């Protein structure tokens, strides 16, 4: 389980970075989304793997998964969402103002 989990996290980070390195705002956003997914999943792995023990206090149950991790991820997810949304709007506006959706500072040779 750990192996595959780690692999998944790694993949998300790798693909995310790759997309961020492309030259369109759209791809950038995609990359960022993947990256934040990766980060969240990574944190999830930090509280070790426990299945079927949701952290809801139920009488008679003493074993729960690490609730703190979940709290952290929850915060992270929401923050990530805010940032992504802003980035999306920004990319849109930048396209409207500059006539191309390049992520670079200087104008493209032939604007899209």
């Amino acid at each position, binding site marked *: 389980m750990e192996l595959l989990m780690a692999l998944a996290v790694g993949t998300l980070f790798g693909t995310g970075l790759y997309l961020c390195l492309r030259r369109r705002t759209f791809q950038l956003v995609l990359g960022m989304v993947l990256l934040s997914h990766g980060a969240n999943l990574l944190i999830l792995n930090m509280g070790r793997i426990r*299945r*079927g023990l*949701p952290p*809801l206090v139920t009488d008679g149950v003493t074993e729960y998964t690490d609730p703190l991790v979940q709290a952290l991820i929850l915060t992270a997810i929401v923050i990530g969402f805010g940032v992504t949304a802003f980035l999306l709007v920004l990319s849109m506006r930048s396209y409207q103002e500059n006539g191309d959706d390049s992520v670079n500072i200087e104008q493209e040779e032939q604007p899209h």
Partner: protein
Amino acid sequence: MTQTVANYCLVVVAFSMILCFWRLWRGPSIADRALALDTLAVNLVSVIALMSILFGTTAYFDALLVIAVIGFLGTVAVGKYLLKGDIID
């Protein structure tokens, strides 16, 4: 007994998810992909149901409901997009 069966059922559903994903990958058209996504969501719903049987906890049902909603929303959104382009109208 139910648990064990649920486990096998999960495997089967997982397999069908693979099929969906294959469709998602192949396309060829956007509509196909959207359809695949929709199906994926539906499969996920059943996965969750089975899982909650397997683990014997009802904590997951809210998520289940939401996924049902989301799948639908997603499909509608894409469909609208394909039809009109702009989804806010």
